[in-house]
């Protein structure tokens, strides 16, 4: 089996998604082949699966073993989803056990292939991953696929998954436009908004899809290329020797670079998916024009924040509402749940402590906004109320929020660099 996939890999010239020319060649061929068949044709589903597999195999760091791991993950997740969606497991205890085992297993796979420390403990012989696998093996796309799998298990537990079909699930999990960096789409939405459900043809999706791709290419090939040399990471002078204004400029540019890079990627993913007949969820809605950090996060990487809200924040809030000591304190419950959620959000971004500190920084920031909002609601003075409703208040909020976010990016640097920059700033 591995040999078969190795043979395929050898015949597929590798390409980075969206930024290399071969990618677009493959993509156009796939769009033509897939859309040539009628939307409800089962051959189209199989052809589409083949296209997804070939595209993943074309990724430079994607090995046949990685594909087998993903297929294994898909089989396991689907089997659990099948059990939970039907009446095979009858008791509530059994159903909860099934869901918990599934979620823990998926998190285990995520931890093994995302965190070096866990991998060193679990995998002793890395030669199974083929050439160049002597060091840490990062399974590309695992952060997003694992969250999709967990979503599928939880929704199966709630019996809200419609039209359960293994090939459809495999295509959902391995969907190449959103495989590497999202958006984290939901199973039901994926098929309910697809060309198959809408009965649409390529000519209906062509202009909207192409438009998004052009926006994405502009952000990636023009804006980020202009911004990159001015970001703090790319400045040639050591941070200690930079004047304060340049540190701020570097941070602001870095924040903008982050936004244009990631939202550009999202545009390309959404546009490409549209050409293939699928609607992916939006990930950004002008986050840097929001007046507080809570609103910024509600409009930044929306598919991740939506996932965390549904599967971490609300379950935590519901759990805490049942605790005697917390029941009377909704603000404490909300803030605790936010801080824990952002702690996990930080851990999801990477194994370094920096990411966890970055997550906590944003969690505490949103909690502070929550407290401030409560205080604001008590205000009755007409002058203060007039100010809160004014354009000035909005502008002050936008500037402060952007500064808070940009300063937070410092946590992506090494600890001594962060200390050095903070020392220069304050």
């Amino acid at each position: 089996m591995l040999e078969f996939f190795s043979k395929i890999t050898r015949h597929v010239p590798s390409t980075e998604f969206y930024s290399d020319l071969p990618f677009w060649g493959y993509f156009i061929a796939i769009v033509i082949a897939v859309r040539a068949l009628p939307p409800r044709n089962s051959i189209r589903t199989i052809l589409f699966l083949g296209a997804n597999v070939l595209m993943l195999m074309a990724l430079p760091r994607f090995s046949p073993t990685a594909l087998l791991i993903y297929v294994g993950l898909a089989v396991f997740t689907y089997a659990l989803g099948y059990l939970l969606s039907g009446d095979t497991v009858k008791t509530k205890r059994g159903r909860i056990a099934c869901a918990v085992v599934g979620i823990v297993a998926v998190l285990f796979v995520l931890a093994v292939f995302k965190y070096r420390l866990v991998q060193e403990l679990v995998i002793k012989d890395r030669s199974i991953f083929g050439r160049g696998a002597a060091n840490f093996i990062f399974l590309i796309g695992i952060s997003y696929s694992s969250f999709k799998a967990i979503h599928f298990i939880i929704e199966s537990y709630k019996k809200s998954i419609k039209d359960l079909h293994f090939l459809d699930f495999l295509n959902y999990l391995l969907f190449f436009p959103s495989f590497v960096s999202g958006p984290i789409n939901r199973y039901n939405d994926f098929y309910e908004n697809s060309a198959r459900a809408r009965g649409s043809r390529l000519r209906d999706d062509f202009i909207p899809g192409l438009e998004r791709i052009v926006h994405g290419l502009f952000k990636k090939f023009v804006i980020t290329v202009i911004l990159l040399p001015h970001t703090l990471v790319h400045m040639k002078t050591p941070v200690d020797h930079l004047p304060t204004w340049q540190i701020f400029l570097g941070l602001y540019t870095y924040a903008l670079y982050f936004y244009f890079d990631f939202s550009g990627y999202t545009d390309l993913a959404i546009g490409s998916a549209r050409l293939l007949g699928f609607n992916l969820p939006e990930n950004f809605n002008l986050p840097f024009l929001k007046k507080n950090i809570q609103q910024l996060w509600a409009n930044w990487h929306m598919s991740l924040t939506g996932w965390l809200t549904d599967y971490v924040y609300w379950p935590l809030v519901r759990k805490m509402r049942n605790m005697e000591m917390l029941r009377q304190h909704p603000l404490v419950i909300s803030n605790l749940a936010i801080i824990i959620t952002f702690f996990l959000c930080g851990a999801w971004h990477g194994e370094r402590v920096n990411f966890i500190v970055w997550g906590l920084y944003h969690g505490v920031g949103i909690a502070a906004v929550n407290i401030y909002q409560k205080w604001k609601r008590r205000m009755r003075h007409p002058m203060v109320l007039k100010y809160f409703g004014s354009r000035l208040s909005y502008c002050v909020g936008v500037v402060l929020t952007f500064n808070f976010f940009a300063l937070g990016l410092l946590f992506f640097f090494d600890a001594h660099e962060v200390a050095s920059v903070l020392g220069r700033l304050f």
Partner: protein
Amino acid sequence: MKSIYETLKQHSRLILLTFEVFWIVIFLLDRLGGGAGGVPTFVYVNF
């Protein structure tokens, strides 16, 4: 003046797309000529 504004508004999507395509082509040509250097990899690819 009003009609110019109306025309611009009516074709704003097309104008924006033309502007974007123009600069994409310029940057790609520059890249091919070795001036702009490589396109940076996507930030979130390694997350």
